[in-house]
């Protein structure tokens, strides 16, 4: 069958729908074409393999998100008790929790992939390109960074906007300036703010019951802090992820595992992750320092967020998720090793700053990453220029010993 499919592929190479067929064909089978001449780098990983690795590292977060959706819902209804004996508490990993989560999260995944891939295919057919695999990861990221009760049509509109304006207008996969998943989230955030923030959207059922006697609410940790209130979650809850939030962003533990997996498979840059963590810690420390130095009166509206222990910023909200899966996007991030340090550092630094200073945006991570996406080429430009300058300087002081006398002239012209 493989042979037949391949023959079919070659025969229909100039048909209109060829890119669609070819996309599925290469997704399922190894292409038969090999290059014939010249030296090539042989790598076991291609774009599809890379993308699939990232998707694999996201699956634990997705599964956990499903359980957590059910858990938060039943917990808010008062039907189950809060779990307290570790990550593998039996009260959390129940079939009820999972089924409710599956029922709510799976449609998000399907809409995200359905709409996104349809647009991607359409553009490939129009432009007569091969189908690019860039959407595989975006399609998985999107359901993980939205509130669970988001209406599906809103998601569809946002995905269409994000893929067309965020990616296709720049030339498709690999050419985009902004991370498409975050473009989608930013669009949702500004277009439908009532569905993306507040205390009604993070737990399934809160919107429907609002205003009734059974009203439930689930404020995120950051949301409570932004209003100057205390939150009631223990550190371990925050680390394991038993807290309300966007579908897949709550479990710092699983994100950490996913991040380690990506670092060891060399898919994502550890430099960006480390520097982003450092950046957020630095900003958190500055804020904690201001509070402990007594420069900020207690009635200030920033007091609760600024006195939030600096390292706990990594446990709540989408910071960890953003650092591991979004900031490390190889297309929109910095390309140079030195640039990655600056790029990551500012992402962490700005995320915490936006969180604290703008109560309207309790989640600053996506804004910080989008901003640094825009600056990434500038950072790279200065890193490259700096390197050129350094080497020119080295050249000036270097003494060149020509092996034979007639090489002197040619060397002179080269270095002039």
């Amino acid at each position: 069958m493989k042979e037949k499919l391949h023959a079919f592929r070659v025969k229909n190479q100039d048909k209109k729908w060829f890119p669609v067929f070819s996309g599925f064909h290469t997704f399922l089978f190894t292409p038969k074409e090999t290059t014939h001449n010249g030296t090539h780098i042989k790598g076991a990983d291609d774009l599809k393999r890379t993308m699939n690795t990232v998707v694999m590292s996201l699956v634990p977060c997705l599964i956990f998100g499903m359980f957590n959706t059910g858990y938060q819902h039943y917990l808010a209804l008062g039907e189950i008790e809060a779990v307290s004996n570790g990550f593998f508490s039996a009260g959390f990993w129940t079939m009820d929790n999972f089924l409710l989560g599956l029922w709510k999260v799976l449609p998000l995944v399907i809409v995200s992939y359905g709409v996104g891939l349809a647009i991607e295919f359409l553009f490939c057919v129009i432009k007569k390109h091969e189908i690019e695999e860039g959407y595989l990861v975006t399609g998985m990221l999107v359901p993980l960074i939205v509130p669970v009760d988001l209406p599906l049509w809103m998601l569809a509109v946002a995905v269409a906007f994000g893929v067309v304006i965020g990616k296709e207008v720049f030339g498709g996969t690999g050419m985009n300036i902004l991370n498409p998943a975050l473009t989608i989230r930013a669009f949702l955030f500004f277009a439908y703010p009532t569905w993306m923030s507040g205390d009604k959207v993070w737990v399934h059922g809160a919107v429907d019951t609002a205003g009734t006697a059974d009203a439930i609410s689930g404020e995120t940790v950051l949301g409570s802090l932004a209003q100057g209130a205390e939150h009631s979650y223990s550190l371990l809850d925050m680390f394991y992820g038993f807290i309300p939030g966007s579908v897949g962003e709550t479990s710092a533990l699983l994100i950490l595992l996913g991040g380690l997996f990506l670092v060891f498979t060399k898919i994502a840059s550890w430099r960006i992750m480390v520097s982003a963590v450092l950046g957020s810690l630095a900003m958190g420390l500055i804020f904690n320092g201001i509070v402990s130095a007594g420069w900020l009166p207690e009635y200030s509206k920033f007091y609760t967020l600024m006195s939030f222990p600096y390292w706990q910023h990594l446990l709540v909200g989408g910071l960890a998720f953003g650092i591991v899966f979004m900031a490390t996007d190889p297309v929109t991030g910095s390309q140079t090793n030195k640039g990655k340090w600056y790029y990551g550092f500012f992402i962490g630094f700005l995320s915490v700053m936006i969180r604290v200073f703008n109560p309207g945006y309790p989640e600053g991570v996506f804004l910080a990453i989008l901003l640094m996406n825009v600056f990434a080429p500038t950072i790279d430009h200065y890193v490259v220029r700096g390197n050129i300058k350094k080497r020119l300087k080295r050249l000036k002081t270097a003494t060149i010993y020509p092996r034979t006398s007639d090489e002197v002239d040619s060397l002179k012209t080269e270095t002039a």
Partner: protein
Amino acid sequence: MALLSKKDANLIKDPLTDNNPITIQVLGICSALAITAELKASVVMAISVLFVMGVGNVVISLIRNIIPSKIRIIVQLVVVATLVIVVDQVLKAFAYDLSKTLSVFIGLIITNCIIMGRFEAFALGNGPRRAFLDGIGNALGYGVILVIVGFFRELLGSGTLFGIKVLGDPIAKTGLYSIGYENNGFMIIPPAALIVVGIIIWVQRSRNRALIEEA
């Protein structure tokens, strides 16, 4: 068009299509971003600019031979400022609420690059009749884009057109809102205008590929 020769007709037609001041020359963007959240404001702005450009181009064209070229920019500014003040006063007298909405942007017509551009590029070198047509054409080209952008932004952002609720009532949940539709808050903020203008440019250039610049 027996009224106008083909050459003259093109003075009006070109800015509407292949030489549009906003989508091709990318001039006058600030006002296109700032005041297009409502269709009504877009229309009033378009009419104001139409008046200022039509009359201004004729005035400059009439006095083009006696303006010392060293101070021509100042003369142009005086002419356009006078006209803008007239527009501003008329709006304040007859449509006070609207002039509040447009606030400073009527005054800023003075600095609209399209107007200065046409004065410099056309009115200084052509007779009053052709200058008038050119002014009208460019103002129409500007106005058309403003109205298109205003139409989409108001319809998608507020669900209204000229303030009339065309998609139903968002609070009483009638019409489209009864099936869960919601207004798109993104369309209200100025960046949305940039994206809508961008999409218009995209559509225009993919229909007429000759407009695409060499990279």
